[in-house]
């Protein structure tokens, strides 16, 4: 494992470069062009893949729950967000968290 802080700084640069380029190039870019469509596909695929990795093959704190518990709690979060509230992110996120604790207690 490498030192963490220098890695954070490198990742800062890797993130800020896009923010800065957005400011610099705003007048010259067509943000609805094909290149941007592709780039947004890559980003969405990556974030979706990250979440399924964390949910299906977790390491660290989340590996204490079973697959059923993790998926069940995700379903509760989705239900609270899409069905019970009109897309209240806060309620959905908290519901998922309470659900995984409840499911773990119940030993699902």
């Amino acid at each position, binding site marked *: 494992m490498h030192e963490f802080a220098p890695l954070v700084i490198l990742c800062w640069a890797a993130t*800020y470069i*896009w923010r800065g380029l957005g400011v610099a190039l705003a007048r010259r870019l067509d943000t609805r062009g094909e290149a941007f469509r592709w780039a947004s*596909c890559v980003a969405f695929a990556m974030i979706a893949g990250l979440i399924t990795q964390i949910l299906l093959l977790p390491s660290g704190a989340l590996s204490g729950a079973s697959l059923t518990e993790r998926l069940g*709690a995700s379903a509760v979060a989705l239900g609270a967000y899409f069905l019970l509230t009109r897309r209240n992110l806060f309620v959905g996120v908290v519901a998922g968290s309470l659900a995984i604790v409840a499911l773990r207690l119940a030993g699902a």
Partner: protein
Amino acid sequence: MSQAAFTRGMREAASIPAATLAAGYLGFGALAAGHGIPVAGAVLSTVVIWALPGQLILLEMHAAGAPLIAVVLSVALSSARFLPMTATLMPMLRHERYHGWHYYGAAQLLAMTGWSMALLRFPEMPRSERLPWLTGFAAVCCAASAAATAMGYVVADQLTPLATLGLAFLAPMYYLLILLGGVRERLVALSIAVGAVAGPLALLAWPDWSLLACGLGGGTLAWALDRGLRRA
């Protein structure tokens, strides 16, 4: 900068937006504690990277011992969405009162929550107030998230494993809901579906490069599928 607009931005952030972000970042802090990363490093990442997916990628890949170049490339690719986000906001932000560094400073603070709120609020806001409003809004979001990162981290060390589990689960739920709640076009739905399947498969095949493979491979496949459907 207009002080009133700045303060108004701060006030608007200091309720549901900051609380929701804080929930996600409490989870990030708890996950970081579980992976044995120093608390200062976790908080630093919130303040400077200021993008939860990129931070989660950094955390997971670092904990798995992935090579430095793979970590940085994956974070860079996951953050590429900031380019079109900033570029679409710039024409709405420009005002003669502000100069280059104002915009570059605001760009550092810009993240998903502030950006989507700005798109909603800007049309009815006088142009001169937009940049200070956004700065105040984003500064509160970032400060609340940094505090939540530290709190999640410290608390996770003292809670029972069960409570830590509940805390750590906040982070993936936050992005699961944002991601699925934001689907408005086929292109996005396809990318999420392909990525969701490709992520775990890629992790089994190439642990160190899985997110790059998932993003580039899955994203390109989704883009090609959408293009095919558009032409059909």
